[in-house]
């Protein structure tokens, strides 16, 4: 019964994600699919079943990961389901328990709360199901319960943006930060950003630092108020694209032109914002690469190979040319 429900859920989820996304990336992948399928089925007859347990599916980031897992599993003829807890920790714990009972070959997990999913991880461990922790790491104490942590190097992404800002304002600037302190990765982005400013750090004055909740509708009024209080503000650093889009909308509403917007994500929306000039600079998060690496690592594990405990994928500054090339997609 649960399996059927899970399947139904998976199918409806895929259907939902298909409605929103275009068919732009299917073409080139089908060719590689054929060759991969052949080698896969000849070398190893076994079809695995994988599950993805993200913190939410209501975000293009997780949706891009889901699409990638789905595509890779389809290509290899593996079973795949995605269980969406919609930011509800309690729901995720039940889903982890369900996943443990269903006997998947491996699960990919983004914790709703880094410190809150120990019980679910233990259940998976008891059944001998390997856990690949993706995107948001679990706390240090729980690291022994996961095979590996695969994520974008958040600190690295921050330093790249900080260095870029230091380059653009060699004489320093008045800046505001929209952060999201309840998320570990976002804390690292801010820490990286501040370090990335480098030797000239003291020339930069942080006139405001507020929690933008990583959300557009929360960040926008806060950014408006910051602009009111600091009419001579030079730039915003925002921990993700929705937050940065809030800042950009506030800047437009205030009729200002020379306030820079620095962000991390390079989501499809963020790339569009970079191209139309609303964003000054954006460093990439790499959900598709995370999913690909996680899928690869899961198979390596099943084949008895050892994998690294922590795999941090490097970020990079997205140029306008890159944004044009990969418009409408993550990386």
């Amino acid at each position, binding site marked *: 019964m649960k399996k059927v429900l899970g399947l139904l859920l998976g199918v409806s989820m895929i259907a*939902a*994600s*298909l*409605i*929103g*996304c275009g068919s732009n990336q299917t073409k080139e992948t089908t060719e590689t699919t054929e060759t991969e399928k052949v080698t896969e089925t000849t070398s190893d007859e076994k079809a695995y079943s994988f599950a993805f347990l993200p913190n939410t*599916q*209501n*975000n*293009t980031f*997780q*949706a891009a990961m889901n699409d990638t897992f789905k595509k890779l599993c389809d290509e290899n003829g593996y079973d795949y389901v995605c269980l969406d807890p919609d930011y509800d920790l309690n729901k995720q714990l039940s889903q982890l328990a369900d996943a443990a009972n269903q006997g998947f070959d491996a699960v990919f997990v983004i914790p709703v709360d880094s410190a809150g999913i120990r019980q679910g991880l233990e259940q998976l461990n008891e059944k001998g199901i390997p856990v690949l922790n993706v995107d948001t790491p679990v706390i240090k104490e729980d690291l022994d319960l996961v095979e590996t942590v695969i994520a974008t190097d958040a600190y690295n992404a921050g330093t790249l943006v900080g260095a870029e800002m230091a380059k653009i304002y060699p004489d320093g600037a008045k800046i505001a930060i929209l952060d999201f302190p309840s998320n570990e990765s976002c804390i690292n982005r801010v820490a990286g950003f501040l370090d990335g400013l480098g030797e000239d750090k003291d020339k930069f004055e942080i*006139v*405001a*630092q*507020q*929690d933008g*909740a990583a*959300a*557009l*509708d929360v960040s*926008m*009024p*806060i950014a*408006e*108020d*910051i602009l*009111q*209080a600091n*009419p001579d503000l030079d730039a915003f650093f925002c921990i993700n694209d*929705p937050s940065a*889009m*809030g800042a*950009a*909308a506030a800047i*437009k*509403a*205030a009729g200002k032109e020379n306030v820079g917007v620095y962000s991390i994500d390079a989501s*499809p*929306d963020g790339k*569009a*914002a970079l191209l*139309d000039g*609303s964003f000054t600079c954006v460093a990439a998060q790499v959900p598709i690469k995370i999913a690909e690496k996680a899928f690869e690592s899961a198979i390596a594990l099943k084949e008895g190979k050892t994998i690294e405990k922590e795999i941090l994928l490097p970020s990079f500054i997205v140029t306008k040319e890159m944004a044009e090339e990969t418009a409408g997609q993550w990386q």
Partner: protein
Amino acid sequence: MNSRLSNGVAGKMLKGNIGIISVLLLLCIILSFTSPVFLTADNIMSVLRQVSNNVYLALGMTLAIIIGGIDLSVGSIVAMCGTLTVGFIVTNNLPMWIAVVLGILIGTLFGLATGLIVAYFRLPAFIVTMAMMNITKGVAYIYSGGRSTRIMDEAFTSIGTGKLFGIVPFPVVYMIILIIIFVVLLNKTKFGTYVYALGGNREAARLSGIPIKRIEITVYTLIGLLSAFAGIVLSARMYSGQPSVGEGYELDAIASCVLGGVSMSGGIGNISGTVFGAIVLGIISNGLNLMGVSSFWQLVVKGLIILVAVIIDTQKGRGNLFKKVSK
């Protein structure tokens, strides 16, 4: 705000909302000392634009609470109608005005459905609108696949970002028009009288031949319409349709009503009180942001001010703080 709204009934409104008005004045005095930009025209326009979205929702919420109901679905309808309208334009290439009308129509239909279910099945509005909250949020996610949709079409975004005479933001203009409409609706029409009668004593209202079902259906339909409108204006301001917005908007709307003296048990309340409540909430966030107070502390301060305002408001009814006033 005061003189613009009230014309002849200024005195009555002042007395009726003495609690919330004193909180508002006190806040303004404190903030004008702590932040030099607080009282600038620019900042006042900015605050009004920020509160406008909440006011659209709170106007409808006032009616719902007065008739003894509530509507928890407003935030989700905001998200749904913003997402759908932007999607209609960008993804489905519909002409802008058709998309806007469709968006408003869909929100209104969901409101109508809520009203019909509440009226004909005699179910608590809390439950029905909670279900509607899930359904409408789901529709937004299904249509968009969870993705936000960017829109740079100036004809559309100017709905939320334009300014009348280059000074007054359009969202504020809509807010003022809607406030006037709702003040008239509630105070000068038979519908308004029925709304109070229904909330005051449902049985008595039924016996005196007031069309209860029609009133309930109208109120929830109006809320659907207002929420759809709020969703479209917000998406225009955000340059995007975002299925994930709207979280907690219903609580802000309810808080504005309660701050403005609308009784949660129905029958008592007025539009001007709610508007002052919404402005107080907006000014608190704005003022604390201007002062750079951390958002964690803002939650505490906001909660405390709601408590203080409500205590002042209930005490005035007992005659020990202010003279008792009628609705």
